[in-house]
């Protein structure tokens, strides 16, 4: 009897459960560019997969076979695709209820999570998970699963993309989501992914609608506290500027706040190039061109010399009516993808 626990080893060539599948070795043709000498276990498993695919065979055995191959090579996208087809076929034929196999979507999701933890950089895993959750139309426990992933890498792009999909698909713009972002930012205030997601759930989803009362001020305060703890961290500065734009509040309102981190006449006390950057805009807007220039000269010479050409460009824009590079008027449109 075949076992479907992924830890059990199957010898495909001798196991009677596999006798009805004819393994198909890879045909490399006459093409030297593609000849590959594989690891033997992989060769055997792949030839059985080709055999299975050739007759479009879907059974719980295929789950074991594809799990074996994914365990050796998680990025093999064709294997993931075939596995999903098999899962759908099993569900349709009531195959999940076979006592011998007793597979379930829940088991599949647990298995996927264990693979995700092994292969953090992998794309296919998260798309597979998305296909399943979309099919089940049930996000129960899914945020917890992504939180587990954030515990080992809180900036994992694939996991964040999946998390945003979940929020959009199941309309999870709620307090739990907000609290999770606050927690992640408490753990690491430099986590730009969490800042981006916070914007997405607070303001980004609104399109052209106005935010609810108090949201703008709450977010301004949150960003200011974060900046005070790490004034050279770019993420909350970008966030703060975005919140002001959304609330139609002028940059000048930040003058005192920025001067705390970049007192322009006491050079030794300057702690933030980002504060200096915003101050140059504020001084420019309010007609104090001398100070604006002073800030940009300091940036080019001392606080951010790697980008001195950028700061020189900004200096040339001073006093003109040209826009300083801060405004992105567009807000991302949130597409509900059901």
């Amino acid at each position, binding site marked *: 009897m075949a076992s479907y626990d992924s830890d059990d080893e199957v010898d495909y060539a001798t196991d009677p459960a596999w006798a009805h599948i004819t393994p198909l070795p890879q045909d490399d043709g006459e093409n030297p560019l593609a000849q590959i000498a594989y690891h033997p276990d992989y060769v055997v498993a792949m030839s059985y997969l080709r055999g299975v695919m050739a007759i479009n065979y879907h059974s719980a055995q295929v789950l074991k076979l594809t799990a074996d191959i994914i365990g050796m090579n998680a990025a093999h996208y064709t294997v993931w*695709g075939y596995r999903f087809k098999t899962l759908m076929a099993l569900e349709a034929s009531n195959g999940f209820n076979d006592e011998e196999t007793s597979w379930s979507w829940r088991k599949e999701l647990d298995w996927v999570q264990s693979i995700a933890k092994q292969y953090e950089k992998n*794309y296919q895993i998260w798309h597979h998970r998305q296909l399943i959750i979309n099919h089940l139309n049930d996000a129960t426990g899914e945020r917890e699963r992504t939180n587990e992933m954030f515990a080992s890498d809180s900036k994992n792009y694939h996991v964040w993309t999946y998390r945003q999909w979940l929020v959009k698909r199941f309309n999870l713009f709620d307090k739990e989501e907000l609290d999770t972002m606050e927690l992640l930012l408490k753990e690491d205030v430099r986590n730009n992914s969490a800042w*981006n997601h916070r914007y997405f759930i607070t303001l980004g989803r609104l399109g052209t609608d106005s935010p609810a009362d108090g949201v703008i001020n709450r977010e301004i305060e949150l960003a200011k506290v974060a900046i005070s703890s790490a004034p050279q961290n770019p993420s909350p500065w970008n966030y703060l500027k975005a919140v002001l734009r959304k609330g139609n509040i002028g940059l000048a309102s930040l003058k005192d706040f920025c001067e705390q981190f970049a007192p322009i006449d006491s050079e030794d006390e300057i702690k933030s190039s980002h504060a200096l950057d915003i101050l140059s805009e504020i001084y420019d807007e309010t007609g104090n061109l001398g100070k604006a220039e002073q800030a940009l000269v300091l940036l080019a010479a001392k606080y951010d010399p*790697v980008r001195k050409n950028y700061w020189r460009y900004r200096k040339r824009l001073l006093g003109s009516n040209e826009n300083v590079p801060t405004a992105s008027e567009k807000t*991302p449109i*949130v597409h509900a993808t059901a």
Partner: protein
Amino acid sequence: MSISSPVAFTNNPDELFVKKHVKYIQSLDTRKDEFEYWLTEHLRLNGVYWGLTALHLLNDPTALPRDETINFVKSCQHPSGGFGAHPDHDAHLLYTLSAIQILAMVDALDAVDTAATVTYVAGLQKPSGVFAGDEWGEEDTRFVYTGLQTLKILDRLDAVDVEKAVGFVLACQNYDGGFGVVPGAESHSGQIFTCLGVLSLTNSLDRLSTASRDQLAGWLAQRQLPNGGLNGRPEKLEDVCYSWWVLSSLAMLGKLHWIDQNKLVGWILSCQDEVRGGFADRKGNAVDVFHTVFALCGLSLVGWGGLKEVDPVYCMPVETTKRLFGSK
């Protein structure tokens, strides 16, 4: 994941070891008994594209056998018109673009059924304007770029709704000026390259305001770290591949000079293996063909002597894009 011998990183970051890089790329195809070779099978067609592009930039375009290259690409085409990473793998846009780019570089587009390819690509555009990567429907700005570039090379942009594709890309711009995989997703230098690529190859860059382009270029320039290297997102580590994603984006915006190019060049050169050739993601790690091509593309963009010029929009030699599209 490499099990190959340790890398001998150069102590001479003023020199590009051209001959060794050519040899390294040629050697990739002879390593078939190594465990990691089959682990990258799902990238094989990309790998051929990366290697071939590198060889073109190194001014040694015939170092891979042309006929075998064409035959391999042909063997990866599916009846649907799309290409898989390898003859046994499903078709996907990522490999379809690589296939078409390879054929474009060796001037052999007539070797495959390109009409079927156009049908395949056009079939993957969704009502929102985005492209799915394959039949499974994953959506990503990368696929908008790969789909549109494929069609542009085949001179069949008319086969899809370009305006909707551009609209989708514009909806992906974030408050910091950058772009992500889908609307709302975090800005990432790799995605910025694909989004600016879409806007460039459809002549739509002016759909971003001057202020917005400047904000984006400022964000990109911020990717340079004090050691000269570039990262992909704030507070992340530098990596050689961003020498391409960030630099090509700055080049499309006309702001390459906003970073310190000398520092970057020194940093890129410090990531090469001076004994066996190839570049690593950063000094101390194993070399691979992906980081090798993007290191060379970066060096080419800042005008490193002896390298052929690379086109920042298409990631192919300018010689190829001139032949395809005429001079710009």
